[in-house]
């Protein structure tokens, strides 16, 4: 089955992973800007990173027939440094114009601090200026529940934000309900230990339905599996879910959300179209 991985940090993965993903049916990836595992020392470092996301990674992905899209932002962890963050925000409009950029992301909270909240709101304001899609990172472990609710508070407090154009990512059993009830899209991240296993993701599909929901590998430099979405597909099949339902979650839903971006130039091939009619 063809699928889209709507959240994967290919900058941290080797080229062999692109090949394995392509062989498993991946036709497109969306790569949010994120914390690289260390704090960068200057805005210039971010400019180099954004060039990598908008120039090098699309070329590397295309070698294997994978279409590469990306998001630009200052991530939640480094947002604790407000002065550096504001320098990075000044750089962002130039990169938001690049042809593979879908919007602002992944912005959010990490330890739920005032500084993180300030920079989150400033990036939401930037996104509203040019009508960008927004992709949101929710915090880890014990910080996830309060942080997700703080993020929803901030989004509800900005009347310019259209929930249909925002995806709140890394939802789990205790946060998926409030996100969907508020009208936002949501993403479930499939990780080996933290976040969500394929089996629990299928449980949430069974409990909350398949509208406005996507699954991703969030493959990065930590413990993660770039083939996690195929694992989810397998778990859905093992439980007897219909192929069209699986395809909706791993292909049609990402297309529906991303196609709201002016830069979503995803090309459905003839083989894709024939597969969709099977």
């Amino acid at each position, binding site marked *: 089955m063809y699928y889209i991985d709507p959240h994967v940090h290919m900058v941290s993965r080797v080229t062999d992973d692109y090949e394995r993903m392509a062989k498993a049916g991946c036709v497109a990836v969306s790569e949010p800007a994120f914390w690289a595992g260390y704090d960068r020392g200057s805005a210039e470092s971010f400019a180099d990173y954004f060039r990598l996301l908008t120039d090098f990674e699309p070329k590397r992905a295309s070698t294997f027939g994978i279409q590469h899209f990306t998001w630009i932002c200052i991530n939640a962890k480094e947002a604790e440094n407000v002065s550096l963050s504001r320098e990075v925000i000044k750089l962002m409009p130039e990169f938001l114009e690049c042809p593979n950029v879908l919007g602002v992301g992944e912005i959010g909270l990490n330890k739920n601090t005032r500084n993180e909240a300030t920079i989150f709101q400033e990036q939401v304001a930037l996104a509203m200026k040019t009508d960008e899609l927004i992709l949101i990172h929710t915090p880890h472990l014990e910080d996830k529940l309060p942080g997700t609710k703080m993020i929803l508070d901030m989004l509800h407090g900005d009347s310019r934000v259209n929930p249909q154009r925002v995806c709140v990512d890394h939802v789990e059993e205790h946060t998926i309900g409030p996100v969907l009830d508020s009208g936002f899209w949501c993403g479930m991240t499939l990780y080996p230990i933290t976040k969500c296993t394929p089996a*629990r993701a299928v449980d949430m599909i069974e409990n909350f339905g398949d509208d406005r929901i996507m699954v991703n590998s969030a493959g990065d430099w930590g413990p993660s599996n770039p083939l996690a979405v195929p694992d989810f597909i397998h778990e859905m*099949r093992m439980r007897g879910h219909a192929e069209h339902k699986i395809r909706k979650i791993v292909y049609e839903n990402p297309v529906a959300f991303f196609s709201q971006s002016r830069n979503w130039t995803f090309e459905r091939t003839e083989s894709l179209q024939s597969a969709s009619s099977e």
Partner: protein
Amino acid sequence: MSKPLTPAELFQREFLPMRGKLLEVAAALDRLERKDPLLLDYPGMDQIAKAIEALSQNGQARAETVQKIFSLTYNPDWNTDISGTDG
């Protein structure tokens, strides 16, 4: 296309993995106690105990309950209660 599992098939599929995961938790608790019995009083172990207790409850929200046991509390007044350190 796969067929939906019958209740008996679902039980068969889930039983051994559940047994295995419970054994892993039991063995981890043994491992901690073997190293030092005081580890069972370390911060976080009370959450483990509450989570184990939650598994015995009836209802459809055990996973959500366990998630909340390991979560910090949401403060609806966070916007006035937290302060910044920079900028």
